[in-house]
């Protein structure tokens, strides 16, 4: 195995040493530097879709997603600036305008990652018009439900189902505003032959889009701490051989 190079670079002025196969986001987390994320999930592959983790790199006008960008020697990264804050706020605002996110009646109220981001970024109003799409709820599964009104298309469920459970029940259909999470080939979840009913998708969903049946407003608490451990054990990174 090729030995990976160790490099040093700066995040917000702080010197950081890194293996070259660690992303900016992973390194920031190690050093307790906060970068907001929604689609990122430790334990599954990075997606780069929510755009909340965008950071500035000195010398470039472009913004880079921290979850999929690797640092270079001597790089200087800024994780928070007026520009970034404004853009992140606008991004969360767009998400709120896209579907019907009504916290007051949501099972995840109080433990929702989208809601938490909005609080963090100081989003008090949505300035753009609400799109108010007419979306269905799939309650065909025996234990779980899927409410498209609350889905932000982060694809955490798709990735965990494919990469960890190995079932690949979930995927995305349609494009743009018409994009939807679908079970198998767009069947009711309850009819899916590939679903093992493991519930991992429910636990990793950042909002109330995937939920356990029988939970009422603010009762759905999600646990996805199992993922990094599961991943570590499978990869044998904690001392074992690859």
């Amino acid at each position: 195995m090729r030995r990976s190079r160790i490099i040093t670079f700066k995040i917000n002025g702080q010197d950081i040493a890194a293996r070259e196969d660690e992303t900016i986001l992973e390194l920031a987390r190690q050093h307790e530097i906060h970068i907001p994320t929604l689609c990122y999930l430790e334990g599954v592959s990075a997606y780069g879709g929510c755009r909340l983790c965008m950071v500035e790199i000195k010398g470039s006008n472009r913004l880079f997603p921290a979850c999929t960008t690797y640092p270079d020697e001597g790089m200087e990264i800024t994780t928070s600036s007026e520009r970034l804050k404004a853009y992140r706020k606008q991004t969360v605002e767009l998400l709120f305008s896209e579907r019907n996110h009504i916290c007051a009646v949501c099972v995840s109220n109080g433990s929702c990652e989208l809601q938490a981001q909005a609080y963090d970024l100081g989003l008090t109003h949505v300035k753009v018009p609400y799109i108010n799409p007419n979306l269905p709820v799939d309650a065909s599964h025996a234990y779980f439900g899927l409410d498209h009104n609350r889905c932000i298309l982060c694809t955490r469920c798709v990735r965990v189902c494919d990469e960890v459970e190995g079932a690949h029940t979930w995927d995305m259909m349609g494009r743009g505003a018409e994009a939807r999470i679908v079970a198998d080939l767009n069947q009711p979840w309850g009819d899916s032959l590939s679903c093992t009913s493991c519930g991992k998708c429910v636990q990793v969903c950042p909002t109330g889009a995937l939920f356990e049946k029988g939970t009422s407003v603010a009762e759905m608490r999600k646990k996805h701490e199992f993922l990094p451990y599961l991943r570590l054990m499978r990869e044998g990174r904690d001392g074992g051989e690859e």
Partner: protein
Amino acid sequence: MHERFEQITQKEQADAAKVEHAIHVCIAASCLSSQSDKVLEAVQAEIEAGQHKGCQAKGVGCMGLCSRGPLVNVAHKDEKLGETMYQYVTPADAPALVQAASQGKQLKERICPTDVPFFQRQTKIVLENSGRIDPERIEEYIAAGGYSALLTAVTEMTPNDVVDEVLRSGLRGRGGGGYPTGLKWTTVAKADAKLRKYVICNADEGDPGAFMDRSVLESDPHRVLEGMTLAGYAVGARRGYIYVRGEYPLAVARLKKAINQARRLGVLGDGICGTTFNFQIDIRLGAGAFVCGEETALIASVEGKRGQPRPRPPYPAEFGLWGEPTLINNVETFANVAPIIRNGGDWYASIGTEKSKGTKVFALAGSIVNTGLIEVPMGIPLKEIVFEIGGGIPGGHQVKAVQTGGPSGGCIPADYFDTPVDYESLVKLGSIMGSGGMIVMDETSNMVDVARYFMEFCKSESCGKCVPCRVGTVQMYDLLDQIYRGEGTRYELKLLENLCTMVREMSLCGLGQTAPNPVNSTLRYFRHEYLELLRDGDLAVETAVSTPEVQP
């Protein structure tokens, strides 16, 4: 192999020498849509029935002036008679046309004058064979000098020599970005030789109003195959894919035929031209997504996955198809390669401007007399394209702007028509070269409506992966629609401008990053048209004076 080419060329020339009057009927998509296939049948039937000796009819590729199709060209062996082009030919014209041709006369009422700037001002490299050879016969391509570049390359040049020649030519990507082609080739060529490298031809042409690539594939498919094979040799790839959009069935059919012919002749497949170089080309069909023109989305689609982009870097040159180094260029770029190898990079670099070399094919459309396909040297002023080659604006209208670059581009107002057409100048004006769509607009076009049209396109073509593009395009479209309907205020305009900046900087791929361009450029030059539509327009006009220009 050289002798084989000679043989074919001699036979073709001998056959051509027997023909006194060659009648060429355009059978590319545009003329086909006005029944040129029926014209060809009628002409052939007439030749047989009337026993017009010395007359021969065949289908050829695009002749360029699509608005006057079906086009027919008659070339006489007797040089004094020369060539005559006919326009708007119908099957009913066939007897008279053949009669006239066989007697060396002209059919006056259908003549299409060719001594006009449309034909005189063009420089043809990519389209050199278009409209001259039968796209379904490899022999004609070879007789026109085809595959000689490939033969020279694999027998006399090292892969490095080929890359050097492309580098020296100064060729830049014709898909829109203008990335130096030689540099891209070098990157892939330098990747570990043990890796399985790939060459991909991007033929997922999707800009509204653009049909350059379709025309090249339909009129001269072997040129693209030769360019790809040369690329494969240069970078060390053994396999290539052409990703053609499914909406181009004719191009696909001709490509398939061309691939089979090339394999049979030994210029494609195993042991190319008797050497140890192997290169296979396969066709992959797009399923109708514009975003699959973006290289990482295209690669995902070729792999059989959902066609959506992924963050770059890593670029495909390093991590592309199946994770291997992949060279990806568009149709027109590959179509330029064979002439560059044949005539040398320096020859190519002598055409065009300092930073934009060679020629560019444009699809002229919109409010212009001569709509069709043109190829011009880089650096030609816009006004020459619009007023001379394009023949000006029909119906006594005034030209207002030219839109280049499709949904990723912008509008250039008539005041800037002295601008030379090259990559940098167009960017400076807030537009881009793009893949070659050029839409001319007159004073009847409302620029807010134009921006709205392109935003509607982006909205429906966004893949849905990243939030700024997926939701931002919907919001921007709704705001534009509101303003266009006269229901917007300065508040909506401000929201729109904020969204434009944010979507440009935050989106994942080129589609989202450039989606605000049509809005930005129309705001830059035609801000008053937005203000006139606002409900609080009067106020707005006053404040507009102090509003700084939106930077591109």
